[in-house]
């Protein structure tokens, strides 16, 4: 088959024939990259779209600031207030239903779990319904706007012999409630609720955890980074491999799964603060977990500082300590900030370790020595029960994703500052 002696390998005609085949092969190869790339990006978009679509409507100032536990009152009217004559004047807005007999306007709304409820949107100043009594404590109770009427028992007259009873609840809707009120003249009792489903407690828990974790992890991390970045190069002789060993040991921390940290954190830190899950133990566990992140970022920022600066400082007669604190630390502030932000990002999203050490109870009033759910753990407990609350979970996810997005942008801006020495200030 020595037809390849001195001729060309492929003549022009054969080339174009082969070229067509090659083009087809190339097309399939290239399209496969397009295909798989779009899979990744579609997934990202799907996550964001899903989270936003389900959670946006639930997200509100109320949601962020109200208690998780809703407050419930059972109230009744004080000594037979019968509503017979007074007609109240009020021009109801579009979605309001006004009972002119009682002077209350009702409106349809949804709670934090997207269930239909009826809220009080207007109470006339003179309405008798204002003088209600709390059934259990006998204290006076004033009906306020924004409160939800869970259910109400109304009688047509105050005489139990002749009255017919109407029971209306929240899920019957505002219109029916208004009709019932207008057709009855005696209010037997009412169940009022307010709030519920809010995440204020979890927000505060998260902030506590971030604070305590950073207070513990930053000094340790910065200290470690300073040693590895500044002092460890000058190790001599038999101690020389020490730096590499220390660095490897610290790197290995990032290979441990978070759930293992949770287990160990449980037996190391929980006994320190009482023995049951609490925020302080959780924070200490998280501090251990984010140390490698802080040390790595800070050491990188320290090493980005040109050696000439520290050499100049030493040449001027400053001690090593003075150089570290007056030259190196101030110049690595962007790096320290970036590492702190990276750490915060990790803390916000952490769930497995905190489930073990800080518990999953959603609290409204936070004490660091007691267990409480952070935002991520809150989502976990909402979703792992019998019924899943998509709306609230997605709303919390929006909050978390927003914070992570902001952190990410800040970190990218900071890393430009860290690398300013490469390009020249």
């Amino acid at each position: 088959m020595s037809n390849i002696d001195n001729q060309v390998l492929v003549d022009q005609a054969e080339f174009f024939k082969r070229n067509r085949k090659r083009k087809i092969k190339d097309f399939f190869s290239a399209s496969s990259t397009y295909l798989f790339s779009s899979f990744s990006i579609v997934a990202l978009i799907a996550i964001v779209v899903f989270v936003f679509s389900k959670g946006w409507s639930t997200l509100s100032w109320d949601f962020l600031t109200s208690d998780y536990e809703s407050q419930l009152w059972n109230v009744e009217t004080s000594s037979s207030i019968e509503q017979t004559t007074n007609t109240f004047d009020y021009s109801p807005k579009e979605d309001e239903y006004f009972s002119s007999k009682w002077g209350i306007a009702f409106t349809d709304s949804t709670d934090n779990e997207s269930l239909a409820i009826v809220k009080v949107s207007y109470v006339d100043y003179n309405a008798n319904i204002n003088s209600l009594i709390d059934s259990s404590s006998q204290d006076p109770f004033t009906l306020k706007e924004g409160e939800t009427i869970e259910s109400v028992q109304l009688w047509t007259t105050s005489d139990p012999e002749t009255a017919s009873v109407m029971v209306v609840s929240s899920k019957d809707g505002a219109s029916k409630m208004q009709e019932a009120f207008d057709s009855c003249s005696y209010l037997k009792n009412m169940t009022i609720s307010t709030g519920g489903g809010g995440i204020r407690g979890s927000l505060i828990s998260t902030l506590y955890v971030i604070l305590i974790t950073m207070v513990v992890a930053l000094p340790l991390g910065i200290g470690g980074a300073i040693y590895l970045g500044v002092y460890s190069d000058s190790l001599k002789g038999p101690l020389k491999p020490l730096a590499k060993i220390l660095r490897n040991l610290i790197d290995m921390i990032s290979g441990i799964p978070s759930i293992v940290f949770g287990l160990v954190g449980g037996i190391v830190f929980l006994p320190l603060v009482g023995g049951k899950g609490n925020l302080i133990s959780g924070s200490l566990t998280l501090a251990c977990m984010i140390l490698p992140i802080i040390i790595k970022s800070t050491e990188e920022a320290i090493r980005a500082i040109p050696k000439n600066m520290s050499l100049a400082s030493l040449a001027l007669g400053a001690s090593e300590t003075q150089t570290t604190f007056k030259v190196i630390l101030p110049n690595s502030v962007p790096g320290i900030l970036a590492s702190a932000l990276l750490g915060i990002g990790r803390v916000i999203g952490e769930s497995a370790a905190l489930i073990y050490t800080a518990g999953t109870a959603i609290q409204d009033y936070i004490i660091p020595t007691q267990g409480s759910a952070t935002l991520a753990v809150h989502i976990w407990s909402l979703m792992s029960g019998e019924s899943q609350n998509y709306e609230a979970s997605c709303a919390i996810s929006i909050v978390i994703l927003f914070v992570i997005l902001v952190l990410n942008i800040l970190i990218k801006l900071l890393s430009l500052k860290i690398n300013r020495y490469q390009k020249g200030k």
Partner: protein
Amino acid sequence: MEINAGIEKEEVIEPNQKKVFTVKNLNLFYGKKQALKSINLDIYKNKVTALIGPSGCGKSTFLRCLNRMNDLIDDCKINGELDFNSQHVNQMNTIYLRTQVGMVFQQPNPFPMSIYDNVIYGPRCQGIKKKDVLNELVEKSLKEAALWDEVKDRLKANGLALSGGQQQRLCLARCLAMRPEVILMDEPTSALDPIATSKIEGLIETLKKNYTIVIVTHNMQQATRVSDYTAFFMLGELIEFNTTNEFFSHPKEKKSNDYITGRFS
């Protein structure tokens, strides 16, 4: 200048020499900067043409025009006439042109594969799959590149495991496996030691029987040793083109004389 009398060289440009490349009024711009100015040059078949000149004179840029490697550079504009075997180069299929015009680079750049795979990379890309054809190609190309005896027992070894000179010969073999008509060489020996250099120069001598060679070199002695024709570039212009003998013994331009006598390099 010592002219090696043992090797036969062109004395004069014969009028009926077949031209592989004809270049008329070639201009090249990198953005606003003009790197080649009105180049007029012919490359003759089965001869070695050397492109010499001080650094930055445009010889490598011109070389890259011949196999359209300048297309890879952003913002590079070319105008003028450049023909390969009477076909306009900018109207040809680029890949086809590159199968006919091969290139050896300054830094040896074997692929991270076995020696065998390195040599038949080009043919494989063209869809040639038959084992016996490929095997024959490998043996022939490695023999032409004077590498066969050294590697025939370890064709499966990684190409990067060879020495610098061997790697460059491997790149040459890889080029030869495509059976091109022209071989372009961009300072092929500047990264090699003297022994490897002389091996490659010896190869050029034997290869020109079957191939046309264009070699860029900053080493004048190398030009005198291996080439039949010499083109002297300076600051993007072609100052003088002549047979190597004539150029070095009787340079026509003052600038050529200055360069040869070492006034600038």
